[in-house]
């Protein structure tokens, strides 16, 4: 029984963090129709940012995330102008490759500087007893923070002028342009926010699991699965997809060899793309 409670709680909490990374991917796809193949690299960058702030200044990731969020927006906007602006209306191949080359550059430099040795952040907060199961506090905080960031994103997208402009661009770029929206700024900002969410998710996950500079790739693939589960382009769907994937991962392993979990995840990815490309939870 305890095993089940702990699996479900872990699933929900980690699922929220996976969801947060996936929301970033989804926002970028929704607004600019770009599949961001550098998402994993930025997740890893977030992990290392949290790691260095923690080890240099002793600041916990749960504090430094705010800094990382801001850093992410700036880095993401810069990345947009470097790698995407020129090819934003070119065929998909161009944006797939330009974001992938970003990923190669980041991971390549990262490997050069940090090597591929595993690292971990031990925040030393102990465990919390929840429904009769002991859950590491860092996991609980990770889930909680992910929820807060998601809520904040929603408030931003629906309540602020800039947020509304982002949604307008995602619905109809030309129309938004006619209404006086500075689309270049909105596109770069959306990419910035998407990247920031990836980095924040990375920072939070780094407080739970050990990682290397290459770890981002795994979470990027998870983000794809989540986006497809929840519907490409739908931020709230990504949260639900994240929960679903988190639960799947943690509960399935109680009943089958761990090795089969990725197989099931990618099978789900391919099957959903084929059967219902709008996503399991998406609209028709």
């Amino acid at each position, binding site marked *: 029984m305890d095993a089940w409670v702990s699996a479900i709680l872990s699933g929900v909490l980690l699922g929220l963090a996976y969801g947060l990374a996936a929301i970033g991917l989804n926002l970028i796809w929704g607004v600019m129709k770009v599949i961001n193949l550098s998402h994993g690299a930025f997740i890893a960058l977030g992990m290392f940012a949290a790691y260095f702030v923690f080890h240099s200044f002793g600041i916990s990731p749960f504090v430094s995330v705010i800094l990382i969020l801001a850093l992410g927006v700036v880095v993401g906007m810069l990345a947009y102008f470097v790698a995407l602006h020129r*090819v934003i209306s*070119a065929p998909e191949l161009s944006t797939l*490759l330009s974001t992938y080359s*970003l990923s190669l550059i980041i991971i390549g430099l990262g490997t*050069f500087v940090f090597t591929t040795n595993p690292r971990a952040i031990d925040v030393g907060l102990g465990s919390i007893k929840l429904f009769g199961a002991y859950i590491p506090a860092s996991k609980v905080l990770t889930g909680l923070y992910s929820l807060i960031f998601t809520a904040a994103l929603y408030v931003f997208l629906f309540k602020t002028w800039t947020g509304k402009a982002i949604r307008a661009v995602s619905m109809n770029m030309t129309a938004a342009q006619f209404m006086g929206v500075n689309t270049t700024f909105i596109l770069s900002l959306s990419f910035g926010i998407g990247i920031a969410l990836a980095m924040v998710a990375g920072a939070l996950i780094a407080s739970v699991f050990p990682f290397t500079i290459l770890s981002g790739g795994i979470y990027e693939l998870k983000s794809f699965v989540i986006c*497809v589960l929840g519907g490409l382009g739908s931020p709230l769907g990504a949260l639900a997809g994240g929960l679903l994937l988190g639960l799947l991962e943690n509960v399935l392993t109680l009943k089958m060899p761990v090795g089969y979990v990725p197989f099931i995840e990618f099978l789900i990815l391919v099957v959903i*793309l*084929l059967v219902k490309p709008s996503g399991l939870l998406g609209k028709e």
Partner: protein
Amino acid sequence: MKKGYTLFWLVPLLVVIAAYPVVTHSVMAREIVFIMLMYVSLAASLNIILGFTGYVSFGHVVFYGIGGYTAFFLMHKVGLHVLPAVLAGGIMAALVALLIGEAVLRLRGAIFAIATIGVNEAVKSLVTNLGFLGGATGMFFNFKIYRAYGGAAKAIWFAYYLMVAVTIVTVVVSYLIKNSKYGLGLFSIREDEDAALVLGVNTKRFKSLAYAFSAFFPGLVGAIFFFKAGNIEPEDAFHLVKSIEMIFMVMLGGYGTVSGPVIGALIYERLKGMLLVNPLFKNLHMAIAGFILLMIVLFAPGGIVGYLRDKFRKLRGVLE
């Protein structure tokens, strides 16, 4: 599509490169040229679906892995000779392409790309869990297997000649496709699939066939590579980075052209070789590759051949 003279220099170029290790009896040169030719074949095959048809098969390495595993299994567990085993590897890869193509080729653009990554990762994790394929550690040849070919040394040369043959066939087939009516149909799909359909192109069958062609040769290549290596494991056979390398070579040389992927592959192999032996660049080769790729995508999307064709219109007959 004007018939040109591209093959008249492209095939001799490959033959000269392939002959160098044979003439010099250099094992080191043979190892380099083997990889070079492998890259040429992989890039030229990917180009059929990516460059001719416009479908970004991001997980294309899956066919290399499937060919490798099929042939390795047949040689290792069934005791088949390398020739039928390699052929079986290619056929298996093509069949799988037809089968999954039926499904994934309905998707377009970036969604297709993601689906092919999903397919590769799913197959990789499946193979990792299959006991009869050796699971995560894979399979190793018993060295006795090489006796049938007159010992390990001779077997490796045999693998080399096989690779030479497959590479030249790949390039010739890609040329023939491009200059055929079928090729014109593929290019019309690349440019506008809906328009092609209304113009009378059986888009579904054309795409499936292109996917099968572009899977067949990587299947052969994978089979030969792992025969020569003597062992196979999921992480090597389905390594996504190899997919990216293929795309890189196609883009560098010029996608949609016949000579582009060949030139891209030759340059990439040399570039990688030079970067890897340099102690400073050894750890930076990924970042440098990324930087070059970004420059191509942003400033020369036609690649080297595309650029030359633009600049020197007279060269078009020989630079297809």
